[in-house]
């Protein structure tokens, strides 16, 4: 990795961290995943035909698949005070009706393939094609997974909780 690339990577850390958080659903796991992602990025060469950000997403996602879905990091964090300090206030309000904890819980119900698509499109702002490139799936698959993820979260966050939709009306699925 060139010095320029390492500077780019440094600038990308907040974005990559949000992605790691979206995947893992906790800051303790997210920061550990971020650290391992950075270490991997510094050890593995970036392919000539892949953008650094897209490559970073791929590395992060693959590490998450390999190591973090098994909840290993969560167990490790219990014994690691430094990681525990990264926990955030789960009662923080996201909207007037929804807390951070509720969003994390709702995200945790999504299948992994839907969660990663929602993270890349909704949180990271990637296009369907860019998301498809990161995940190595057709863009049509991105579209369908994303729609299912949004539908399910809408159901959990708005309908089942009996909260009001964004227009003030009761939301229907």
């Amino acid at each position, binding site marked *: *990795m*060139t*010095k320029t690339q*390492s*500077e780019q*990577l*440094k600038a990308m*850390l*907040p974005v990559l*961290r*949000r992605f790691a*958080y*979206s995947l893992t659903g906790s*800051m303790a796991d*997210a*920061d550990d995943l*971020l*650290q391992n992602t*950075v*270490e*991997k990025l*510094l*050890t*593995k*060469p970036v*392919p000539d035909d892949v953008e650094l950000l897209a490559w970073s997403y791929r590395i992060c996602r693959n590490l998450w698949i390999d190591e973090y879905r098994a909840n290993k990091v969560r167990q490790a964090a219990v014994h690691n005070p*430094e990681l525990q300090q*990264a926990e*955030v206030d789960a009662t*923080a309000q*996201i*909207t007037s009706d929804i807390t*951070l904890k509720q*969003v994390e819980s709702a*995200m945790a119900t999504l299948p992994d393939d839907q969660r990663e698509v929602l*993270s890349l*499109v*909704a*949180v990271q702002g990637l*296009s*369907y094609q860019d998301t498809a490139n990161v995940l190595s799936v057709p*863009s049509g698959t991105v*579209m*369908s997974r*994303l*729609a*299912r*993820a*949004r*539908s399910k*979260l*809408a159901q959990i*966050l*708005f309908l089942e909780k009996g909260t009001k*939709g*964004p*227009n003030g*009306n009761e*939301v*229907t699925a």
Partner: protein
Amino acid sequence: MKITDEQLSAFLDNELDDEQMALVRDAIAADETLCDRMATLSMVDHVVKRAAEQATTGPVPEHIVALCDSASESNVVSFTDRKAEQTAQQPTPNSNTRWLRGMAMAASVALVGLLGWQQLMGDQPGDAGQWQQIAAVLDSQTSGSRYSAGDVTVMPQLSFVHQDGALCRQFTVSGQSRNDAVIACKKDGSWQQRTLVPMTPTNGQTGEYQTATSAHELDKVLDTIIKGAPLNREQEQQAIQSNWQQ
């Protein structure tokens, strides 16, 4: 016509083709509930994004930022960065410098067993004279530049400590008769070849080599035998002074 969540979701992202966008637009104009549904789906995005932003408002841990900073303090040239260097046919150590740091990758026991044994038992350099000239470069030069060694050009790329304790170097050998990426280790006072991966020409064009597959092969080998981080420039200079003896 029924508009599905999938269509609404893609409409939200402006990812439908023009015809579909117009179709959904007309449907929304005619049916208020579709507008409500789209707002709900949009709200999901808002909530998820805001949660991610709020959860990550704190600074990135310093030890992770430091990893990026420390990446600029080593002096190791990437194996795959070699492609651009070869294409340019000019020694450009600065632009091709790959800075490797961090933990050694988890070793694959199976790969070590298979590759390690094969490489130790075979692939000995066939041209002793050429190998002596290559060894002279390995003995005396730090990574990042190309050096003439008889009828070939040698470019040391990185140096590292093998898990068996030996000091090793990854380098390329380029010439009319061969274009290889090699790992050799200093053992009993001489450089011994451990791994050789040929770089095949692409479309017969001189100076361009297909590196993707061979790079991955060599990276896998490196991951399994490296102990700790690669040597930085200062450590390489110390190794040169000690004739690469541990």
